[in-house]
């Protein structure tokens, strides 16, 4: 190789240099253009005869060439243009990266495409720095082009995060608590909603999952319902099903009013911000993500006794399915199953049952099992536990299949991403399924050098022809499958659910006073759900100068939901002639923001960033519903088939908020950060005189580790504090007209419309309930940030609360809505992250969070209930979740008082039992990486808090609970009363109470209760209280193994052998795997705990391919 060849190969070089050397051993330099000085080493034996330099532009380059012995030195005293590009590790261009020549003030920043140009001299050192990334230095020496890849700073504490209004800020500058969940965590283990993946991940965020289709999970952030925001656009309808989890780049949780104050009134309870994926500059890629999970078994399901069948008082004999007489009223307190009886053909007790052959000409005489005989035209059948596995036999294996494809592509002007996803679920209930499909396009485009367009449009369709009906009720499934059915009935015998000869008219079942055949419900009582959701946003950013920009962002959510309900003929709990109802609801909201941003670095010690904005929010809900009154033709589900005139209703709700806001952030001396925001909302939901409010916030944080020399093991230390005041901007979150006292519609009787007057009165000039939120926190990183901890303490003073004070109802009003009382909501949040083990091949990273919050009554405005009383029972200083139950009368030392009849006396006042809020909620995520294998394990749970369990109460009441199998039951079946309620009877004296139920005087004398009662009657009358002693309130403590995923990622080396895939991984995944809980028969994590579909364990696999 010689110089000539080389220089020709570099045509950019504006210089032609010809050297004639006889022999050249080694060339160590490539581009003398940039050289201040170059030494060309030649072979010691080389003979240099001539060096000719020809230059094209002397003004640019005046080299000096000197020859000494075997060295050639070319010297330049000019600087040259260095060009290049800066990207991150994922090859995404990084705009705004500072490029500086070390030791000078000369510098530039990269443009939107990450490109930079800078004049430098040979030998200069360029410093590339960007917040959130490790700075990199390069010595100018060899080329004019430097492609720099910046590494993200391993110290997550310097990451850039999305904050309110989608403003990106350096995390270490934040003055309030915030947690970010990476979208990647949602990719593998699928839950039906994009929220499901957040369970246990964020301190202070409590999500109660749901097993039901298109039911929103219960979500509370510091005890309140947060605002959902997608790409900066608030989504007040907050449907977590409409977001494709694979489209999510990251989720930011702003934990309180302090972080979300810039959203104004709607941000009063904090916010969850979804940031969706856009695409990557310079990357064209197709990504397939596919998960299939099987709901193979129940995590929590009612466990019923299978030793006693249907009936009452130990007697059962099928009569006509009415429940009357020997059928025992529909109870499951019947005779013992599998009783031996030597006098029958089968050797077991034989009784007429619902599936007995009927012969009017034969009268069967049989023993009821208690020595008395009865007769029937129904043939007695063996009374055995045929239906011991009814629950398993009824439910089927559910399937949840998620498939998504995403294509990203780019040009020099921009980049975009198109995605499509489908989620299909086959329910565990027969004949139920759902589909949830999403399409999305998102991208960024540089319309000109200064104007950037960014946008996203998503369409989502959710549909199911049949969502199972859940809860406690006659037409719900678990009610009929797991509660009101004895093991004498085999559910598999019920699959032919029409009565013979009455198809479409009359279902068949063992009891038709109260209950419905579960198969009849699953296949005939259908609930259709169809929803179309379109949502998106468009933003235009105009960069006036490096410091000043203006952004216009407009986003909308448009939803329609159509629900149909088919009620067949003979449905118990419905019109015997069937019914059909349909409803349509449309929602539209649009939020437009105009934001002026100014950022300037005044000096090394003073950095300023300010925004000023205006926003408009408009929201409209419209709905229409109609139903038939009986069906003329059975099985035809449309309105015109109604027997009587159809009934219908509609509504229109509109609201608007106009806002102005500003935000000022200051950085002082590289470690002190000051932040202030103010927002003025004017809202349509309040009377004109009183409809505008200003919401301020101020905060400070100090990164002490950047300012002071701290002990070696502390690598990061930050303290922060923020104060904000926000009000709710409305009297009701759901009714925009709540400030107007109106009549209500009353029952339409025989075609005559009517109105009623609500006796709850909203007093005039209400101020929206206001929160003064103060929080402080400390973040610390130790051992080179191997372990990070973040602690937050918050205290919300809630005042101007909307309180329904109850005057005497004889005043004409049963409640008055006033601004009254003060509450304090306080809590701690702890987040720990670390890498306990880190070797070349093996790494264990772990994140743990736990949090609590409670609310106390701080002061009481009206002494309606007596001085210092917030209501009849709670007073100043009490937690408002203190649970009072009205379950009985008690002695001064808390013993239950029983009446002369052996039953507990009815309560005169309620008595305290505990608290309903959990003491703590916690979550623990672990990732183990070994070479190409990665294992994720996530557990979470709650500690404490009492929850009422309808499931357990009804099971004890109905006779299906395992605990009802005991000697008392045997005695009761034999007609004996042997159960003695543990309690005392009053033998003399009396007690008086104040109006709060506190004892004033007490002269009662007691003796132990000795009156036995019939156990079955007692259980039926009381549900078993207080025999159960907890009144069916259970501790909410539980620990759940939420998700496990084991992933194998194919290495680049393995993939290099083929051309098809750039990246590939395969995972074994599991969700909802193990539960340790104090609540029997139900999942404590489940919303409601009242006969929802049982919680299932899901196991499956995931494929992720990129090509």
């Amino acid at each position: 190789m010689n110089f000539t060849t080389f220089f020709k190969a570099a045509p950019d070089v504006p210089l032609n240099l010809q050297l004639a050397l006889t022999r050249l051993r080694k060339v160590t330099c490539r581009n003398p253009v940039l050289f201040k000085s170059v030494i060309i080493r030649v072979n010691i034996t080389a003979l240099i005869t001539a060096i000719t330099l020809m230059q094209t532009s002397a003004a640019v380059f005046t080299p000096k060439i000197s020859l000494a012995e075997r060295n050639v030195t070319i010297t330049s005293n000019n600087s040259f243009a260095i060009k290049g590009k800066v990207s991150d590790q994922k090859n995404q261009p990084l705009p705004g990266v500072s490029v500086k020549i070390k030791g000078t003030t000369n510098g530039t920043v990269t443009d939107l495409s990450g490109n930079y140009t800078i004049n430098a001299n040979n030998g200069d050192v360029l410093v590339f720095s960007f917040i959130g990334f490790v700075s990199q230095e390069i010595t100018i020496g060899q080329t004019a082009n430097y492609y720099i890849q910046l590494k993200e700073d391993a110290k997550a504490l310097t990451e850039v995060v999305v904050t309110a209004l989608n403003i990106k800020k350096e995390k270490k500058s934040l003055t309030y608590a915030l947690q970010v969940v990476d979208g990647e965590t949602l990719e593998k283990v699928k839950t039906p909603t994009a929220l499901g993946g957040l369970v246990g991940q964020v301190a202070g965020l409590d999500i109660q999952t749901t097993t039901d289709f298109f039911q929103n999970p219960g979500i509370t952030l510091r005890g309140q319902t947060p605002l959902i925001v997608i790409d900066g656009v608030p989504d007040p309808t907050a449907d977590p099903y409409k977001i494709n989890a694979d489209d999510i780049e990251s989720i930011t949780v702003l934990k309180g009013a302090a972080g979300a104050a810039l959203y104004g009134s709607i941000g009063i309870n904090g916010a969850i911000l979804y940031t969706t994926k856009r695409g990557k500059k310079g990357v064209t890629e197709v990504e397939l993500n596919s998960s299939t999970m099987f709901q193979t078994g129940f995590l929590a399901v009612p466990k019923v006794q299978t030793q006693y069948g249907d009936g009452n008082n130990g007697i059962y004999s099928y009569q006509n399915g009415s429940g009357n007489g020997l059928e025992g009223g529909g109870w499951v307190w019947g005779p013992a199953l599998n009783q031996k009886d030597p006098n029958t053909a089968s050797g077991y007790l034989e009784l007429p049952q619902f599936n007995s052959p009927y012969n009017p000409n034969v009268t069967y005489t049989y023993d009821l099992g208690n020595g008395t005989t009865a007769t029937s035209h129904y043939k007695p059948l063996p009374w055995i536990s045929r239906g011991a596995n009814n629950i398993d036999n009824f439910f089927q294996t559910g399937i949840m299949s998620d498939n998504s494809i995403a294509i990203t592509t780019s040009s020099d002007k921009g980049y975009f991403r198109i995605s499509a996803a489908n989620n299909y679920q086959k329910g565990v209930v027969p004949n139920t399924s759902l589909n949830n499909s999403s399409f999305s396009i998102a991208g960024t485009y540089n319309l000109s050098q200064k104007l950037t367009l960014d946008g996203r449009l998503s369409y989502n369709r959710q549909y199911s022809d049949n969502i199972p009906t859940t809860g406690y009720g006659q037409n719900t499934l678990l009610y009929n499958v797991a509660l009101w059915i004895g093991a004498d009935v085999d559910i598999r015998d019920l699959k032919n659910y029409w009565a013979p000869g009455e198809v479409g008219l009359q279902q068949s079942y063992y009891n038709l006073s109260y209950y419905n055949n579960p198969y009849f419900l699953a296949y005939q009582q259908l609930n259709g759900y169809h929803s179309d959701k379109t949502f998106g946003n468009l933003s235009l950013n105009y960069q006036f100068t490096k410091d000043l920009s203006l952004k216009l962002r407009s986003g909308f959510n448009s939803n329609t939901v159509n629900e149909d309900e088919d009620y067949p003929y003979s449905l118990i709990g419905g019109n015997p002639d069937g019914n059909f109802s349909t409803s349509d609801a449309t929602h539209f909201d649009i939020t437009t923001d105009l934001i002026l941003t100014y950022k300037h670095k005044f000096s090394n010690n003073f950095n300023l960033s300010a925004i000023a904005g205006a926003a408009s929010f408009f929201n409209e809900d419209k709905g229409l519903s109609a139903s038939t009154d009986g069906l003329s033709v059975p099985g035809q589900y449309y309105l015109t088939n109604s027997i009587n005139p159809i009934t219908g209703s509609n509504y229109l709700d509109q609201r608007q908020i106009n806002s102005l806001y500003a935000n000022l952030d200051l950085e002082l001396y590289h470690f002190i950060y000051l932040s202030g925001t103010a927002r003025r909302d004017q809202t349509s939901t309040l009377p004109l005189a009183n409809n505008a409010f200003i919401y301020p916030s101020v905060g400070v944080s100090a990164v002490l580790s950047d300012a002071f020399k701290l002990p070696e093991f502390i690598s990061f230390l930050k303290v922060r504090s923020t104060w904000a005041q926000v009000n709710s901007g409305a009297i009701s979150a759901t009714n925009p007209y709540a400030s107007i006292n109106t009549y209500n519609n009353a029952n339409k009787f025989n075609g005559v419309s009517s109105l009623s007057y609500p006796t709850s009165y909203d007093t005039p000039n209400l101020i929206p309930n206001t929160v003064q939120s103060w929080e402080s926190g400390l973040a610390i990183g130790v051992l080179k940030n191997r372990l990070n901890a973040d602690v937050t303490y918050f205290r919300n003073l809630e005042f101007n609360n909307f309180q329904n004070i109850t005057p005497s109802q004889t005043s004409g009003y049963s409640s008055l809505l006033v601004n009254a009382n003060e509450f304090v909501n306080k809590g701690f949040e702890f987040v720990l992250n670390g890498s306990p083990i880190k070797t070349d091949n093996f790494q264990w990273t772990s994140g743990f969070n736990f949090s609590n919050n409670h609310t106390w009554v701080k002061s009481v405005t009206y002494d309606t209930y007596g001085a210092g009383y917030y209501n009849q029972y709670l007073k100043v200083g009490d937690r408002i979740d203190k649970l009072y139950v009205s379950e009985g009368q008690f002695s001064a030392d808390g013993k239950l008082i029983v009446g002369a009849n052996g039953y507990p006396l009815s309560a005169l006042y309620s008595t305290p039992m505990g608290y309903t809020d959990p003491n703590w909620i916690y979550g623990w995520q672990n990732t183990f990486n070994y070479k190409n294998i990665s294992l994720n394990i996530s557990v979470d749970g709650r500690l404490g808090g009492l929850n009422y369990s309808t499931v357990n109460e009804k099971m004890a009441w109905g006779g299906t609970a395992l605990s009802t199998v005991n000697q008392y039951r045997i005695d009761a079946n034999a007609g004996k009363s042997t159960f003695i309620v543990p309690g005392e009877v009053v033998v003399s004296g009396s007690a008086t109470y104040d109006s709060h139920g506190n004892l004033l005087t007490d002269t009662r004398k007691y003796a132990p209760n000795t009156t036995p009662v019939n156990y079955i009657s007692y259980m039926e009358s009381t549900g078993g209280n207080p025999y159960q002693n907890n009144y069916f309130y259970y501790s909410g403590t539980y620990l759940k193994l939420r998700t496990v995923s084991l992933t194998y990622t194919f290495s680049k080396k393995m993939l290099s052998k083929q051309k098809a895939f750039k990246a590939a991984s395969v995972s074994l995944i599991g969700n909802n795997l193990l539960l340790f809980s104090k609540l029997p028969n139900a999942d404590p994590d489940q919303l409601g705990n009242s006969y929802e579909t049982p919680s299932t364990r899901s196991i499956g696999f995931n494929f992720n391919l990129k090509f």
Partner: protein
Amino acid sequence: MKNNYWLLSFLLLGCFFSSCKKFSYYQINPNLPTQADPSLLLPNVEQIFFSTISVENEFSCRYMVYSESADNGQYYGWTRGTFNYTNLSQVIKMEQEAARVNKPNYKYLSKFFSSYFIVGTTQMFGDVPYSQAEQSLLNNNFSAAALHPVYDKQEAIYLQVLNDLKLASDSLSASGGLINNDLIYGGNITQWKKAINSYYLRVLMSLSLHANDPTLNIAQRFNEIVSNPAKYPLFESNADNAQLQYYDIAGSRYPYFNSSEAKIYYLMDNSFVQLLKGLNDPRLFVYGAPTINATSAGLTPTDFNAYNGVQGSAVISVIQQQQSSGNVSQINSRYYFEPANEPSVLMGYSELQFLLSEAVIRGWITGDANSYYIAGITAAMQFSDYSFPAAQGVPYTGPLYSDNDIQTYLSQPAIPLKAGTEIQQIITQKYISMFMNTGLQPFFENLRTGFPVFDVAGAGIINQVNGVNAVPKRWMYPIDEIGNNAVNVNNAIKSQYPNGDNINGVMWLLQPQ
């Protein structure tokens, strides 16, 4: 320059996307009105006060027995009652709207409903707020006094009611405007006057223990009405009954239609079955249902032997065991299979006849007590002579007794009034006529007269007075009043009940002079 156009166009977009409605636009609720013609409030008020059918009353009055679980009404184990002043608020609101649009007839109907409300309330508790009640709603008065109304003496309440009813009857007139949307009388003012006057007589009779009170002057008031039928018309037949007719239309059906509970757990009380059997009263066939065993044995629904009751005061396990034996009558299936069934009666013609009969006996008016009494029974039997249309689940059609059967019934020697037992006979017949109807009236009649004697012999009875099972005399004051109006309710308790607020306290109304 090009960039500036871009900037301009997107600023214009910003304006376009912002809503431009004025905030005053949102100050009107497009879904619900803030003012209403009284005719739109009347149907709701009528539905509230004419819905008198509740099985709870039937359990307490020994008509029916609840077998699902131990019921406090059945076992006289109740403690507190509830106030329903929100219902009175609907009446007050109607009165207010009537004044606003100057339609005074609605005001006088309001006087009637207010009176009916407060009589029902004071009969349950004793002294209750009335003269100072509803001030917040009426006058937007939220003073401490208005929010915590004082309690009125029961006697004062009755005096006010008597005056208001009189005023309503005197003032209703064609010149007061049409009464629209009237579910009861279709706007017929004369029929409203009949109802108000007839009810006025019921109120007077409820004060029979205070017949000698010179302030109330009951006999004279009673006579004033009865002696002037032109000015004070009274019910003339069942067609004048103050009752709400049900229809097979959504929202207008019989309250127990399709009730699962009614299909199983409402049994006939043995004391009531024996009373009907003893009198060979065919109303048993339309009130109750033959037992399962009787049906199996082939007995017809018109055979008295097909019916059997269960002792409502027995402990629940005994009741359930008897039901399980198949030998207990349920209520008649029409109560849960017939969507229209029979109307809900606030007060019927038969009750008026029984009142007139009793007034003759008491010497308040002159006349033939027995004819009034017989007319009462006849009207009651005609009312209950339910004609069964062919309907799903109802195994038989047509009426179960005829006018001839009624005559046969009346001709029995046990029926006509006998000297010395007139009151008992009248009240007993009134009791029989009020099965599944007329609210708690039979219970209040029992408290006033002691007839018929409600069975408390069973072991299930909870309430005792001096160690002896007893029917309670009242309900304790509601828990919300204890919480929200403690001073006034406690004063009322102190002034009325020396033994405190308990269900055996004897209120002024029940204290013999």
